[in-house]
């Protein structure tokens, strides 16, 4: 396959993300990376669970967390997961426009999530003076949830730069794998959030 075929393929195959060796490498490699990421988040979850009672006399999770916000955030992120599935659906159908639209929605939902998270942190810090330095619990909370938030930020930047870069030239065999693994990343962020809202928030207020 020549460079020309990769950038301007005559036909798009039905799995464009895995049509080239490079694409296949990316696809496999990214899945492996997610295996490593699981250990990363497990270490953070473990640390959080070990320290979630260590409030050092300060406020604990029952007093801090409210569920309304978390519920909205969860809905936003879950929905964004579905919209990115739609985007990939259209990618496979070689419908670039629709893919971009759905990706746009995904990004918007992700941004919404992020705003709520920032609001939440800000609220804890200013209303309750609950910070990273308050107690071991505070350190663990902000680190776990913040790491996830950091992933959201990175995922959004990734989506946006892919969209901007490829807005003019459409889908090809070179960028299809990139879109595909970015969406895998996004799903993984959602996977982590499912455990965060369960373990941190729901179990926290119980």
């Amino acid at each position, binding site marked *: *396959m020549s460079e020309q*075929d990769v950038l301007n*393929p*005559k*036909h798009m*195959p*039905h799995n464009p993300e*895995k*049509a*080239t*060796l490079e694409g296949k490498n990316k*696809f*496999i490699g990214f*899945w*492996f990376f*997610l*295996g*490593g*990421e*699981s*250990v990363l*988040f*497990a*270490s953070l*979850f*473990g*640390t959080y*669970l*070990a320290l979630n009672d260590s409030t050092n006399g300060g406020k604990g999770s029952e007093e801090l967390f409210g*569920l309304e916000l978390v*519920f909205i955030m*969860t*809905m936003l992120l*879950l*929905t964004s*997961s*579905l919209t*990115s*599935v*739609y985007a990939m*659906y259209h990618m*496979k*159908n070689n419908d670039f426009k629709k893919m971009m639209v759905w990706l746009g929605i995904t990004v918007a939902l992700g941004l919404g999530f992020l705003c709520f998270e920032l609001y939440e942190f800000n609220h804890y810090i200013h209303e309750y003076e609950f910070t990273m330095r308050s107690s071991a619990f505070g350190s663990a909370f902000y680190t776990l949830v913040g790491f996830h938030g950091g992933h959201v930020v990175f995922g959004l930047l990734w989506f946006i730069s892919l969209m901007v870069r490829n807005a003019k030239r459409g889908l090809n065999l070179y960028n299809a794998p990139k879109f595909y693994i970015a969406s*895998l990343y996004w*799903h*993984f962020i*959602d*996977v982590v959030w*499912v*455990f965060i*809202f*369960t*373990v941190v928030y*729901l*179990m926290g*207020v*119980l």
Partner: protein
Amino acid sequence: MTDKVSETSQQFDYEKQKRKEEMKQQVITFALMIVFTLISFAMVLAELDRLFVIPVILVLAAVQVGFQLYYFMHMSHKGHELPALMFYGGVFAAFLTILALVVLVWW
């Protein structure tokens, strides 16, 4: 480099149809995920017994994650054997890590 560019449009239409079916499934999956989430939140708000609620919401979370992996991330498709193996390898190490940090840190 494997070259599968030349596919007939017939094949393409067939694939397209198949994907459409699949997309329907994924929407159902999504609906289930929302339902699970609602159940979890509701159970916590209902202030049922801790010992009952915690295992249930953990199981619901695990099932949701399974949906994400198998439907949204297509792990059920073929060609995902090695990704699944390595991912579960990570999950195994992750599980041991959490177990240890929860059980062994304070005594």
